């Protein structure tokens, strides 16, 4: 079976019904797709197959001959981050980070497809992804900022549009 993974041609030996998640993690040692539920429910294993977000845990290897697979490792490196990656840092959209790789992959497809900065549209595009830490607000802000064309300073964290700071009487002393 021939695959192109993150622009590298690979010959893959796993049996034909092996999930793409297992092929990536166990045969190719590409560990960014996470085994969150292994039943298509959580989105943590999402990768791009020929540019489209797919649940790698539900995708059998035999359906992929000749396909191009992209994981978050293929989107940018620590030295050369993609705009979505920069936005997730700047907007503090990653907490524990376990869902982040799948979300960045899906957000990349959304923005790349001309997705708008409307948080309703973004929410619909990312609806198949669970995040148990953030409450989603900062993820939506990060993706909206990319769609708007913002630039990002990864050496600082943005203030959230949804934060309201309340002065507490007597707490200043």
């Amino acid at each position: 079976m021939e695959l192109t993974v993150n622009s590298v041609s690979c010959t893959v030996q796993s049996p034909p019904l092996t999930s793409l998640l297992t092929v990536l993690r166990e045969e190719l040692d590409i560990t960014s797709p996470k085994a969150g539920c292994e039943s298509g429910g959580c989105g943590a294993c999402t990768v791009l197959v020929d540019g489209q977000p797919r649940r790698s845990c539900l995708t059998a290897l035999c359906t992929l001959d000749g396909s191009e697979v992209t994981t978050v490792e293929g989107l940018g490196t620590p030295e050369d981050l993609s705009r979505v990656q920069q936005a997730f840092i700047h907007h503090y959209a990653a907490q524990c980070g376990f869902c982040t790789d799948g979300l960045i992959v899906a957000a990349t497809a959304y923005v790349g497809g001309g997705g708008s900065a409307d948080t309703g549209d973004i929410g619909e595009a990312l609806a198949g992804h669970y995040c148990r830490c953030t409450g989603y607000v900062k993820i939506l802000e990060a993706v909206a900022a990319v769609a708007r064309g913002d630039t990002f300073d990864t050496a600082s964290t943005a203030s959230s549009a949804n934060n309201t700071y309340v002065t507490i009487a007597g707490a200043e002393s």
Partner: protein
Amino acid sequence: MKVVGARLPRYDGVGHVTGRTTYVDDVRVPGMLHAAALRSPHHNARITRLDIGAAAAMAGVHAVVTHADVPLLVYGHLSGAGIPGDEPLLAKDHVRYRGQPIALVAADTVDIARAACAAIEVDYEELPALFDVRLGFDGDAPVINDTFGNWYDQYEGNLDVRQIRKGDIDAAMDAADLIVSGVYRTQSVEQVPLETQVCVAIPEPDGRLTIHTCTQAMYFSLGVVCSHLQLPMSQVKMVGGTVGGGFGGKVDTASDTLTALAARKSGQPVKWRWTREEEMLASGNRGPWHMEIIDAVTSDGWILGRKMLTIHDAGAYGRFSVYGLTKHSFHHTGAYSIPNLHFDGYVVFTNKIPTTAMRGYGVTGLSTAIEVHAERVARELGMDPYEFRLKNANRVNDTSPNRIAYEDPSTVEVLQSLAAATGVELGDGLRAMTREQRSGDMLPDHLVAQIGSGGGH
């Protein structure tokens, strides 16, 4: 001051967005085996036969760990704090909840490990199970916990109940214009971290163990592992700190000890990653709480006293439940000052998954009960619920149920902010209220004696 007030980036941000962060499941070690657990299919049953012969003989199986392999089988998560242990690491002759581990198999692949689990022969004698904490006190209830019976019975002073007594509850009830009672029951909740319980244990050439752990409590887990394995702490190196979500559910040492045993028995590195189904059905969850509240109140909206009964559903074993109940008891007045208290709390055992921490252990369900009750009391009095709450709100030097003087209680400001954020108009008096120590109209006679000292700024 380069840090305070600065909007710093998170130190692990680059790793998190580029797939470089190494979670436990991402740890790769040559020759690593994979583990699977045999778990109880029954809620309550005696084990009359356990035969691992066929499983151990299967090709690709390197170790089958049972109770006989555990140097110290019974150790409690609070044993270090003097609370006796009650839970065997692996079931020996009795399973007390569905999902309780009986054996762990380490094999070349997960599929082989699971097949070997299925080949372990176990005979069970099923027993009646108990699921309702209220029935645990009945004389004919099945006995759930070998160490404590049906409820924890070893509080200070040989009491079988966590008690708080403050002021004079009978006088408060006599003086009340109105007594409002309510029963509140919260359900169990699974924390659902996206990363399931997972561990990689590696036997090192010098005899030590390296354990890659997803624990939320590293040194605590080190103590639990070393106690069960009867090893000095110098023989175990824990590598952790990168957790794919925990929310309290990774405070229990759920996978480290068994993986370590499998690694030692097989002599090879072992990974044990729970399936999502195991995480949902067998990992410690937030336990249910049964709470009965009786408040003595005056017609002008003061809470004179509270009588409360709490029954905490611990599941089959104690783990941290005694701690959770104690914390619950300290918080049972919530954000309000009530001078006369009579609290009784029980940790009761049922044939369910042992329960554990989740975001405000012992307090979150309690807060729900207290706030719903406050709303009901205000309604009974025909009083604005904000006014009722603000009058009774904790102030500097008011004292908690366990007699700690509050230094910086924020109840007043939180209520004012809540009103502002939801478009509720507070009267001038309520808007001007602060956290400062009670005086004047806000210091009625019944609150004088409870004032402590040491708070303030």
